[in-house]
């Protein structure tokens, strides 16, 4: 292996047994019954357990990472990203293949691993540090720095179960951020906390990436990937589809519709009786090509669609949504009969199945994750149905207004406004 290579992975594969959830012998009784059944089926001429009930979460994954390089890993849920990180951080062994990591490895598959609610902030810093592989002396030396970064110094001797979730995450990230491995393996830890803290974490990650350490970074946040990494690999169904400079990889990922589905269905038992005769069926986000997606781009328009059934006619119905940030701040609210003409046309909606859809223009939302809340009501008469967090989706700002400056922009909107610059005489 080349001296400048920090990570090399050759033909790594990881096989899981599927149906593990149902078929796993959780109790000895299951084991006994299951074995008897298998023996029975063999006796009847059937086949014993074969390879068909296994799945390759990773297959033939090969890549290498140069010392000091930051490599992004992108792919939708279930593409094998987490499995890959688990194999790289030695939490689980590969089923086949070979890999080598040269240098002290620090892995962050989540923040606050091992935090105990009964212990104080101070105690948890030491515990968590030790779990992440720091030495006691090292933690003691960096203790003040960690506390400063976390902004919870007043509560450092309070059990963390009394912390707000924000404080808890800040403390957890602070410990992780002060880990000093030569190779850092990071899962989506930045998808937590409020926007300010996320920004701070991204900044810290940027420092790490620039300090010559080797970083492997998994994220759904395409802007973060582009900001922090030079190159990325795109995973799909456990295989590496592409390795390219990050901008190119992100483009490939977003345009191939590899991002995970943004669709919500309501089962009958999720709908309260009070909703009658309104029956919500589905809510979905369609990208500019009409594909269901939960990751859209700021530079493209996208569509929000609600599918529902009326078992009886409803008078004065309006179906619409609240758009909120993940912090719960409202961005805007919109109903299908906002237009007075449409409202008059649908004064009474007869029984049947409907689709209400609208397009959100390009250059509306800033990067981040958003929640859509569904509401079906008749003004001043009745609220038929409401689900405040029906669906979530993320917006990627790549290429939109001002992204040539690689800095995060506050605010949920990112309009492209027509600026004029003129020189006063």
């Amino acid at each position, binding site marked *: 292996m080349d001296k400048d290579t920090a990570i090399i*992975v050759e033909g*790594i594969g990881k096989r*899981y047994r599927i149906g*593990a959830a149902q078929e*796993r*012998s*959780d*109790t*000895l*009784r299951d*084991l006994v019954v299951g074995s008897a059944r298998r023996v029975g089926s063999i006796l009847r001429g059937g086949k014993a357990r074969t390879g068909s009930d296994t799945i390759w979460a990773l297959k033939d994954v090969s890549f290498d990472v140069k010392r000091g390089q930051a490599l992004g890993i992108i792919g939708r849920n279930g593409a094998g990203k987490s499995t890959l990180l*688990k*194999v*790289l*951080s*030695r*939490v*689980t*062994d*590969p*089923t*086949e*293949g*070979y*890999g*080598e*990591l*040269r*240098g*002290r*490895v620090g*892995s962050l*598959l*989540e923040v606050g*691993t*091992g935090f*105990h609610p*009964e*212990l104080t902030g101070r*105690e948890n810093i*030491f*515990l968590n540090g*030790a*779990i*992440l*592989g720091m*030495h*006691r002396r090292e933690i003691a030396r960096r203790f003040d720095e960690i506390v400063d970064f976390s902004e919870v110094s007043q509560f450092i001797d309070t*059990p963390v179960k009394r912390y707000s979730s924000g404080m808890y995450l800040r403390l957890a990230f602070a410990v992780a951020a002060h880990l000093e491995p030569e190779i850092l393996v990071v899962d989506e830890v930045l998808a937590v906390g409020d926007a300010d803290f996320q920004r701070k974490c991204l900044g810290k990650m940027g420092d790490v990436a620039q300090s010559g350490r080797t970083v492997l970074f998994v994220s759904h946040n395409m802007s973060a990937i582009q900001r922090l990494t030079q190159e990325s690999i795109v995973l799909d169904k456990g295989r590496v589809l592409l390795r390219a400079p990050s901008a190119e990889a992100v483009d490939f990922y977003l345009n191939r519709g590899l991002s995970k589905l943004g669709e919500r269905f309501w089962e009958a038992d999720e709908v309260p009786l009070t909703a009658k005769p309104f029956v919500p069926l589905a809510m979905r986000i369609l990208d500019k090509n009409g594909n269901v997606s939960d990751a859209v781009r700021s530079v493209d328009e996208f569509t929000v669609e609600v599918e529902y059934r009326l078992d009886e006619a409803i008078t004065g119905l309006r179906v619409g949504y609240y758009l909120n940030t993940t912090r719960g701040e409202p961005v805007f609210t919109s109903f299908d009969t906002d237009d007075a003409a449409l409202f008059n046309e649908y004064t009474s909606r007869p029984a049947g199945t409907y689709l209400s859809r609208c397009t959100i223009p390009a250059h509306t939302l800033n990067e981040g994750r958003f929640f859509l809340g569904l509401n079906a009501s008749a003004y001043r008469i009745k609220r038929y149905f409401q689900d405040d967090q029906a669906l979530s989706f993320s917006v990627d700002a790549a290429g939109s207004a001002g992204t040539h400056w690689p800095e995060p922009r506050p605010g949920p909107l990112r309009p492209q406004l027509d600026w004029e610059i003129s020189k006063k005489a």
Partner: protein
Amino acid sequence: MAEGSKAQQIVTLKPSKGWLGLDLAELWRYRELIYFLTWRDIKVRYKQAVLGIAWAVLQPLVTALVTTFIFERGLKVQTGGPPYPIFMLAAWLPWHLFSNALTRSSTSLVQNANLITKVYFPRIIIPLSSILSAMVDFGISLLILLGAMVFYKVPLTLNFLWILPLTLVAMLAALAVGLWFSALNVQYRDVQHMVPFIAQIWFYLTPVLYPINPTSPLGTTLYNLNPMVGVVNVFRWAIFGESYGYQPPSSGLLISLGVVLALLVGGLVYFRRMEKTFADVV
């Protein structure tokens, strides 16, 4: 850190194959984690308990009082000489250490599933540290035993030092069985229901509350295979000396040790074989 100033640490990833042996060097590198996890277990156990660590004092005290009342006063159990409370405590201490460590370690892997699925470290650290955390209660009980010895004017002799190796054997026994149970519990949650039950039966088969004198040769052999019998009997000798007919460490303890080591080697092999799947199964 200057490049190349330290020996490069190389981690290899490959499918695991069979028996890998216990990597003591690696365990040594992780000694601080063993310390912190033990410390956490101790700390958390008595947090938010009004009486806190006083529970560790109350348990042996109340046990000694109640069993004296029932077994000495009520059932007229003959100890063969020594005052009942000390007779009982001398055996209860190593026994309680063993059963405490055993029950804790058996559920330890499942309770720490969040660590196992997120961070790499030698998995044996988890049952190991839960066994070490049982030492605190033992230490406190030991003080109570010493107090009782003063009260009943039982002289302290150099034999008392034997308590150290005996404690070690009791802990190794707990580790040996704990390795089996903790690894099995990852896959079969039945184990956590079985362990208290097994500990209970085991307790009846060990001469803690009453002396046991098997009558047949087969009975004696089976009786001696229980490693805790050797530990408990020599523990009594360490306190009372030979005055009541207790035997100094002899072949009986060696049998105990042999059984413990056999269980331990088997437990280690089984644990090492299973640990690769813990993160996937737990």
